[in-house]
């Protein structure tokens, strides 16, 4: 009998081959073993995208869909990766930027990727930087610049800015100030939000018997108007004049009213935190008085039925007065087109506080440390911050006032009464949030202080003293451990 040229596959051979093959696949990325059955109400799962800034409660509409990455146009010699923080309905509008930049720069392509930045942190970006694969350009919120620079997350841009002929005077001074830390410039301001314009609902004023053309000029007047406007039906709040701590979160509210009352939050020369400045304490006491007037839980409940932005109670006619930024103009047009409103400066604070108080917010654009396309990246940063095209897009598509004062958009603004009102506010702006590396921590502490005061758990002075002490400790620790 002839021997068969091929033996049938024995079990041993099969097992050997299979195990070698599977052993070889051990180097493929594997997901970690799951953490066991999460018990009800107790499993630790990774949070989904779209977290909010520290507010009293999460908003039901806050989790937005993540936009897909945008691929650069074909055939570009350099491709830069740009990470931007706007999801939801705004994301597709950004295509205008990417396209305009690519049109003006035929050798650079833009890959645009969404990276959530909840104004406290940008975990995706830091992981990328730490992992050595950062994007080339990133959006950085104004107050984050000092913190990120101190942690070595950004590239210093001084040389390139000087070479491009950009001078500090080209920007609104608070907007420029927030990008300078330890003598170096770390990003260029893209938007300067005049915070805030004081909006009032003319229809509600009429309904309450007030003159719709006369907004409150002082904080005391605002208090009176609130008493007149508020309608509480037993235990249910129907309408309120005003809720002081809902100006884009508790911390931003305290900043707004703290400055309005003539307070200061930080001493840059001595690096001292001054959250317990007497005028800031006065501002918080005033906010707390509103809470006591209407019961904070009731207000919290009243607020909880709405979100911010498009679901803000002002849009629904449930509050009659609110500080807003210019971006709300397009939102109001979209979601409350029949609302008759006026815009004015914030009411003047009590006891001789300087009038027309406002501060500048807004995003900046910078280059993360480790970017490999510094020239192209800086070209994008320069373009989006100072070019006519980009600043016009900022204004017209996004209602965002450019940080660059020489933008042609500011000529257009003069013709629109609503935008002109904001322009006047921007011209007078003197404040920006503290430029120091414990900014995220400070914001968190201020929000906690406001919460504690409003719910009566601490007096405003106690709460702010605690915030001051904690933040000072944190700031000292960071400075002591050294900055690269």
């Amino acid at each position, binding site marked *: 009998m002839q021997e068969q040229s091929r033996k049938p596959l024995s079990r*041993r051979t099969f*097992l050997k081959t299979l*195990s*070698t093959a*599977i*052993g070889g696949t*051990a*180097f*493929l990325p*594997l*997901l*970690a*073993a799951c953490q066991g*059955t999460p*018990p*009800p*109400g*107790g*499993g*630790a*799962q990774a*949070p*989904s995208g779209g*977290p*909010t800034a520290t*507010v*009293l*409660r*999460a908003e*039901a509409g806050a*989790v937005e869909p993540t936009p897909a990455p945008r691929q650069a146009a074909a055939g570009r010699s350099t491709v830069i990766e740009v990470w931007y923080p706007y999801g939801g309905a705004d994301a597709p509008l950004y295509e205008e930027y990417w396209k305009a930049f690519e049109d003006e720069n035929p050798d650079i392509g833009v890959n645009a990727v969404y990276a959530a930045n909840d104004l*406290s*942190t940008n975990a995706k970006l*830091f*992981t990328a*930087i*730490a992992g050595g694969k950062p994007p080339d350009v990133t959006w950085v919120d104004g107050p984050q610049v000092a*913190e990120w620079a101190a*942690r070595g*997350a950004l590239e210093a841009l001084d040389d390139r800015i000087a070479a491009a002929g950009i001078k500090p005077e080209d920007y609104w001074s608070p907007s420029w100030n927030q990008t300078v830390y330890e003598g170096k410039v770390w990003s260029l301001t893209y938007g300067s939000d005049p915070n805030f314009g004081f909006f009032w609902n003319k229809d509600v004023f009429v309904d309450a018997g007030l003159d719709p053309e006369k907004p409150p000029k002082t904080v005391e007047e605002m208090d009176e108007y609130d008493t007149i406007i508020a309608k509480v039906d037993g*235990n249910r*709040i129907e309408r309120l004049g005003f809720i002081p701590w809902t100006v884009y979160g508790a911390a931003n509210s305290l900043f707004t009213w703290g400055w309005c009352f003539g307070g200061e939050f930080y001493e840059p020369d001595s690096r001292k935190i001054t959250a317990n400045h007497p005028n800031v304490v006065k501002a918080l006491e005033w906010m707390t008085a509103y809470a006591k007037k209407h019961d904070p*839980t*009731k207000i*919290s*409940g*009243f*607020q*909880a*039925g709405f979100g911010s932005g498009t679901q803000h109670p002002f849009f629904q006619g449930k509050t009659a007065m609110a500080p807003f930024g210019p971006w709300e103009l397009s939102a109001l047009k979209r979601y409350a087109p029949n609302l008759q409103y006026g815009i004015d400066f914030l009411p003047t604070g009590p006891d001789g506080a300087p009038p027309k108080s406002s501060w500048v917010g807004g995003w900046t654009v910078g280059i993360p*440390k480790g970017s490999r396309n510094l020239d192209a990246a800086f070209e994008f940063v320069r373009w989006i911050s100072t070019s006519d095209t980009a600043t016009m897009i900022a204004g017209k598509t996004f209602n965002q006032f450019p940080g660059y004062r020489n933008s042609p958009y500011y000529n257009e603004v003069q013709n629109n009464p609503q935008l002109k009102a904001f322009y006047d506010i921007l011209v007078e702006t003197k404040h920006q949030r503290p430029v120091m590396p414990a900014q*995220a921590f400070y914001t*968190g502490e201020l929000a*906690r202080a406001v*919460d*504690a005061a409003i*719910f009566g*758990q601490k007096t405003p002075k106690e709460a702010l003293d605690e915030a001051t002490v904690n933040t000072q400790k944190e700031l000292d*620790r960071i400075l002591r*451990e050294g900055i690269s």
Partner: protein
Amino acid sequence: MATPALRFKRRGLSPQQRRDLRSGLLFAAPAILGLLIFVAYPVLASIYFSFTSYSILQPPFWTGWENYQTLLFDDPLFYTTLYNTFYIAIFTIPLSVIVAMGLAMLLNVKVRGQSIYRTIFYLPTIVPFVASSVLWLWIFNPQYGILNTLLWYIGIQGPGWISDPSWAKPSLIIMNLWGVGSWMVIYLAGLQDTPQELYEAAELDGATAWQKTIYLTLPFMSPYILFSVILMLIGIFQYFTQVFVMTNGGPADATRVYAMYLYQNAFTYFKMGYASAMAWLMFVMVVLLTFVIFRTSARRVYYGGQ
């Protein structure tokens, strides 16, 4: 010729056994490597980081025991978060056991549509945490939520629930009870494992339903209860998603649980070393508590079912 029963004493492994061992290890290699790279390494790294100040973007800066000292002696928020977590644990665990056990016993009764009822009560556990958190935000809404509306119909003025510092934690506890489905299923399996003859014997002796429960059901269910209590304890210490979505720690720190504070330190405040120290303190606490639970229950748990 097979000789399975006789085992000769040998030194080391036979070539056959060695080959089997190698094949087995190769098969298990992906899982072992995954465990080492993605679980063991981060865990060991975090022990190291807990003795440093680490901002992720810059190399770790050795600080010794400072993180632990600050946590234990200089950080009032640490104790607030511990209190919040323990509060939720102390109420959620016993209530969950009672509710799950009650449901399991009810669902053990042979009625029509039993499987439909079982499915319905299990459904809440497969709703993703984020979706259910958003849903419960609306249920708890003091002005327009279902809960307060129902209470209003029977003449009660409902509280602020999740927006009220004194009601925020009880609201979370209620929300947790909604999700006891998986424990209920485990208890159901256990109930069906209890010998029916004992129940019949007890009935003959004239035992009431309550007596049957206390003296028969609970002892037989004790290993299941122990198992679920320990897992619940571990889970509640990691309680995070619902708080993150619904309240972000507010109002006024009422729902700032341990894992929430850990997350803030790690990802918002650039204090990864501090957060690692928090994680290890949590580990120590959970181990101690588990040990205590095992010790105190050793005599009460009856493993006679097998």
